[in-house]
Structure formats: structure tokens, C-alpha cells
């Protein structure tokens, strides 16, 4: 049953060295505070799963925490490349990393199959695409009814998934709205799920019944971390900090600058610092 825990405890209880872990969020509701807590606790040999690895995986890879990444787009959208991830892939710094690359369709279908308890996902994909030649986990199956050859990929079943969401009620049910991305599938595909939320409300009685809700028994732990997805955003709470995404490009370009930034903004901070980071963005949301 779900527990309300301080983030430090929620991460310590649910993440282990060597785990496969998804910190999901498709541009929206990225669980930055949870990722930073994982960095502070210094986990090693993680398999990092995410459609759009983005800044938090650039940070974890740069800190040497990942042995493998499974992904479909390893960029800083609209800005450019993820420079710590590149340094790892191109130069083996700070350690070399195994990569398993898919398309968005491949990853989305694989999460959905994981949530559905299926061993693999079947879809019309990768036709003529080079990924099928370099990723042995992209195979094909023939439709038994039509004879059409379709792509098949193994389902994604993380040991643990972290997401950020807008609200939990007092019982621990969680509500997600706006760009809902892959959050629901990533939670239901995982063995354990940890959710950081902007706030806890008494109940969801006055909300529309079709909003995306993860029932409390699908979640291991909830931590209240206002601003916990900065520099990503929380629809209805605060806007995306696009300037921070632009700045990251410069910080991550230099190994020394990156380390200094991590010490000042992650290692030396706590989950409580996130609320202040989004104060000026709340006005714009």
C-alpha cells in the first residue's frame, strides 16, 4: 500500500544499485527532484530507461551512475545535444555506457506492453530504418491472419519508475493532467513506482471523472515536492523554464563547469529547494 514519505526516504527505500529505472516525463512533469535525490544518494550501475533522456539523465550519466541507457531521443529538445551523454558515448567519459536505442513508437509500445503484462510489443515500425540493424532487440513477427511482417520489441518492465504529478489525495490516489506523456504506462509497467506531487488535497470529488488517475494501490510511495519538476513544468502550477534548458547547453559543454554546477545545485541542496526555483514561473503559468 502507498506510503507518504519524505523524498530522501522514498528514494532510499525503492531504488538500489544495479536497478533498471525509469524517471519518465515526456517534456512535462519530469521528476527532477527525485533524480537529484538519486544523484545525492550516489547509486551505481543503473540501467536508465526513458524516451527522452533530457537533462536529468545527462546529469546522472555525467556523474557516472549509468551502465546502460534505453532511449529514443537523446537530445535537449530545441536546443541541441546532451553533452555529458555524448562525452560518455563518444569518449567513454566518465565511463563507457551501453546503449539500446529505439524510436518513440517503439518505446511507447514497449511501455504499454509492459503495463499490459505482455512479453513484447507488436507494431508497424522501423521499416527501412537503420536502428533495426544495430539493435538486436528490434525483431519482427508475421501476423498470423494477414501475413504482414511487423516490428516486435521486448516490453519494458523497470524495477522502479519515478514520475512527478500535480496532485495526490489523502488516500494516495494520484492525478496527472495536461501532456500525460507516458507516465501512466511507465508506472503500471514497473514493479514499484514512486511519485512526487505538487500538493496533497483532501479528495478528488470536484474533479472531472475522466482525468488520468493512478489508484493508490499502483504506487509504492508519494513525496510532496512543490516545484519538483523544475526546469520542466507542471500544467496549472508553473511554466517550463526554457531559459534553463538553453543554459544547460553551456554548463554541460565543459566537464569542470558541469561538476561545479552539480556540487552547487544538486549535491549541496535538498528537495526543499525546488519550491523557490519555480516561484517566478508560477506567475507566468
Amino acid at each position, binding site marked *: 500500500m502507498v506510503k507518504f514519505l519524505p523524498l530522501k526516504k522514498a528514494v532510499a527505500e525503492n531504488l538500489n544499485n544495479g536497478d533498471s529505472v525509469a524517471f519518465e516525463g515526456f*517534456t512535462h512533469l519530469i521528476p527532477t527532484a527525485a533524480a537529484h535525490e538519486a544523484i545525492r544518494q550516489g547509486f551505481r550501475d543503473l540501467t536508465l530507461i526513458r524516451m527522452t533522456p533530457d537533462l536529468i539523465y545527462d546529469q546522472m550519466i555525467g556523474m557516472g551512475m549509468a551502465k546502460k541507457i534505453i532511449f529514443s531521443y537523446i537530445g535537449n*529538445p530545441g536546443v541541441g545535444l546532451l553533452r555529458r551523454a555524448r562525452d560518455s558515448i563518444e569518449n567513454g567519459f566518465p565511463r563507457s555506457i551501453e546503449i539500446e536505442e529505439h524510436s518513440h513508437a517503439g518505446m511507447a509500445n514497449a511501455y504499454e506492453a509492459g503495463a499490459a503484462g505482455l512479453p513484447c510489443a507488436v507494431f508497424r515500425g522501423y521499416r*527501412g530504418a537503420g*536502428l533495426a540493424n544495430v539493435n538486436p532487440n528490434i525483431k519482427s513477427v508475421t501476423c498470423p491472419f494477414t501475413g504482414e511482417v511487423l516490428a516486435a520489441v521486448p516490453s519494458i518492465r523497470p524495477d522502479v519508475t519515478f514520475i512527478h504529478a500535480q496532485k495526490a489525495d489523502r488516500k494516495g490516489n494520484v492525478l496527472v493532467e495536461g*501532456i500525460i506523456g507516458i507516465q501512466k504506462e511507465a508506472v503500471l509497467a514497473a514493479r514499484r513506482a514512486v511519485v512526487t506531487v505538487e500538493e496533497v488535497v483532501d479528495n478528488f470529488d470536484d474533479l472531472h471523472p475522466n482525468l488520468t488517475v493512478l489508484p493508490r494501490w499502483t504506487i509504492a510511495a508519494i513525496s510532496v515536492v512543490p516545484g519538483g519538476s523544475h526546469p520542466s513544468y507542471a500544467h496549472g502550477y508553473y511554466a517550463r523554464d526554457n531559459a534553463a534548458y538553453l543554459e544547460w547547453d553551456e554548463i554541460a559543454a565543459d566537464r569542470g563547469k558541469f561538476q561545479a554546477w552539480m556540487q552547487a545545485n544538486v549535491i549541496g541542496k535538498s528537495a526543499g529547494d525546488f519550491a523557490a526555483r519555480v516561484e517566478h514561473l508560477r506567475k507566468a503559468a
Partner: protein
Amino acid sequence: MSERGFTPNEMMTIAASRALKNDDVCFVGIGAPSAACNVARLTHAPDITLIYESGTIGTAPDVLPLSIGDGELSETAVTTVAVPEMFRYWLQGGRISIGFLGAAQLDKFGNINTTVIGDYFHPKTRLPGGGGAPEIATSSKEIYITMAQTRRGMVEKIDFFTSFGHGEGGDHRKRLGIETAGPTLLITDLAIWKPDPVTKEFTVVSLHPGVTRQQVQETCGWVVRFAEALDETPAPSDLELNTLRDLQARTKAAHEGTGKAKAA
């Protein structure tokens, strides 16, 4: 800025926007495609349906998004759906008329590389990768491509097939069981290109104002074919140019964090 009053990049974006129709359902990539699609929406195609892969359907952003998931895309959309639904029902389901893509490397058959420069396992440069593009390229009814011409970008042989265009040309798509049309239009900062009906090689059909054949060839890594009847692309109108510039000014201010705060 040239003495003509517009830049090659502005000409490219505006020429691309003109190719879009009011009833198109367009899967939009970030960058020049996003600018072109929104200029079309703000000028001649007000009812165009713009879809970003984050799940926003029928979005109408006031500023160009930095990412495919900026909040404004969801706030102004007709509806927002989960990512698996986006790729399963809407893209694979065959409901997208135009997939609009950019490229790091492109060959003359419209094959696109945004994955690596050099060998995949020992890359010289690791690029972001395909994201939604591998399936956008095969499931959208048609593909439009836009990119600025350089010899590094437009190459005889791409290093990696991120998205399949016409493969080796001819009926290569059909032979792989792909039923959609693939790349039907390439718009660069110098010219408009269309595939030859038989060989599928991109052929220049229109030069932008003031551009010479020689300039097109010098900035392209393969031997360029020109159509017999070569058009000149009409210069941007004041409306088109002002719409694009206003959009970009709003975008720049917003992304630097100095944009107008929306009414609280």
C-alpha cells in the same frame, strides 16, 4: 539580410508554409518545420491541424515551442492524448496527411540521418536520434523535408538511415511493403525540390529569388538535377514576412524568460 529585404532562411520557412493546405493534418517537427507550420496557420491555412508528438492535437501556440511538449501546445490544443495513443491511433492509424521533418544529413532520395555522424558504435558525433521520425516517415501519407543547404548536410551517402525516404530510389518503398508516398517535397534556403516520378531522385523545380544554379550545386554534395522548366519562387509577401518575424520575436522573448507574462 540581403538587399532583397529577406533572408534565405526566411524564404525557406515561408516557401515551406505555402506548401501546407488548410485541411492538412500535419505531424510537426521542432525547428524550421514548426515555424513553417505556424506561419501557414497564421496566414492562409487557419484551420490546419497541427500535431506535436507529445500528444497535442490541433494546437495553436502563440509562440513557437522550444520543445515538442511546451505547456502552450497543450493549453491551446483541441485535445491532448497519451504518447502511446499518439503513435498507435493517430500516426500508425493513418490519420496524418503530412509528416514535416528536418535533417542533419539528407541524401538525394530523401533518406534522413539524425542519429550519428560516423560509425554507429564508434560515432564521431552522436546526434539526438530519431524520436518519432522513423515511423513518421513511413506512416504519414506524405513527407515534407526542410533544411538549409550545406555540403556537409546534403550528402551522396548518409551515415545512418534514421528515417527511410525512397531508399535507393524507384520502387524501393513498395518493395519494403511501405504504402505511403514518402518524401514528396524538399524545401531548402535556396530552392524547392520534388522527386522525379520514376527514379525518385530530388530535382530542383524552383529557385528562390536571386539564387543561381551554381549556388545550389556548390552547397549540395551530390550532382544536382534541375527540371527543364525551372520556376522562380515568389518572394515573401509583406504579410508572410511580418507574420514570421512577429512569431520569432515573440518566441525569442519568451524563451529568454523575458516574455510577456500571461494575464494572471
